[in-house]
Every structure is written in C-alpha cells, then in structure tokens.
C-alpha cells in the first residue's frame, strides 16, 4: 500500500464558497473584527513605543 501522507487522515473538512457563506454570519464577523481591533489597540497601548 502506498504512503498517503496527510490524506490518510479520516476527516478533512472542505468548505466551498457557499458553505463559507452559510457558516459565517456577517454581523458576528463585524463584532469579531471590532473585538480584535480593540484588543490590538489595547495591546499597542501596553507596548513601550520605539
């Protein structure tokens, strides 16, 4: 039997564009980005400037 490498694994999730659109809610994405930006800004404030 040949070596199948990564594709020997039992499950690899494959999402096409329609799947992605159904899985991701636009408003939740906006909230997630809002949270990420606030966290980035908070971290930047704690870092000493150059």
């Amino acid at each position: 039997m040949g070596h199948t490498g990564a594709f020997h694994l039992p499950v690899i999730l494959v999402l096409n564009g329609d799947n992605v659109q159904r899985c991701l809610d636009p408003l939740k994405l906006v909230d997630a980005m809002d949270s990420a930006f606030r966290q980035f800004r908070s971290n930047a404030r704690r870092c000493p400037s150059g």
Partner: protein
Amino acid sequence: MPVRLTLPIASAPGIHVVMPAYLPDSDALATRSSRLFPANPSKGLPLILGVVVLNDATTDAPLAFIDGAMLTGLRTAAASALSVRTLAGPNAGILTIVGTGLQAGTHLEAIAAVRGLTKLRVVGRSLESARAFAQTIPGDDRDTDPRRTNGGRSREGSGPRRPRDDGR
C-alpha cells in the same frame, strides 16, 4: 502573524500571496494562499482565487480547506461594515457600492446588517454588470434608469433593508 509574502508571477501576469498565522485559541495554524490574476474575469473566473488551509498546531495534520475568495469577501466586507457602524451617522441610510462582483454582494449583506438601508446605488464598469447585480438584490422599488457617474454606470435600487437584531 508575519507580514504577508507577495510573489509576482510575470508570465501570468499575476500575484501569488501567502499569509501564515498561528491561532493559539484554536491551537491551529492557518495559511491563506491566494492569487490575483487580472485577466481572470475575462476568462469567466474570479479576479482572486485562493484557499485557506487549517492545520493542527501540534501535529500539522490538515483540518480544513476553505474557499479563500468567499472568506476574503466576507472578511473585507466585515471591516467595511465595522467602519460604517463606527463612523457613519446613525441615520445614514443610502449606500453606494462601486463594483458588481463578489465583494459587492458581501458588502451589501454586511452593511445591511449594521445599518437600516433605505436606498442602494450601484456603480459598475458596464450597465450590464450593474443590472445583473441589481437583479440579485431583493427590493420592491427598483429604479432602472442608468446614469453615468465618473465614466462608469450607476444604477439605483431601493427597498428597505433593516439591520439584524444584534441584541444591543
């Protein structure tokens, strides 16, 4: 997350872009690999194709292959919608979208989620593309008169689109 790697492909012509990231909360590695080939639309293909690969950060086992074009479309639109929610006036209800491709649709969906839209204006390179995009939009009052704007074509369609209830 390092700066993205950009590799010009002279023969296409096009650009090969790779963006790796480590996601500690998910204990996963993500690699967005995409290409931007300007000639693609003339071949009936999206301008940007790509895939996001997720790998287990402890074993490297691949976990998922995700369509990159739609993911990029949704992510970019979310950033735009966040700027609208943060910066636009609370009563702003007229949205103008420049472009009629995948990102036009994701932007409409995302911005409609944060603002109650009363009117939508679409500007495309051709009347045909603007018309085709407008036909995909649900609405009860569609103005079909084209008007030239900055060398392109604009198209108006109106119909109330209310923001989603986000519980706030």
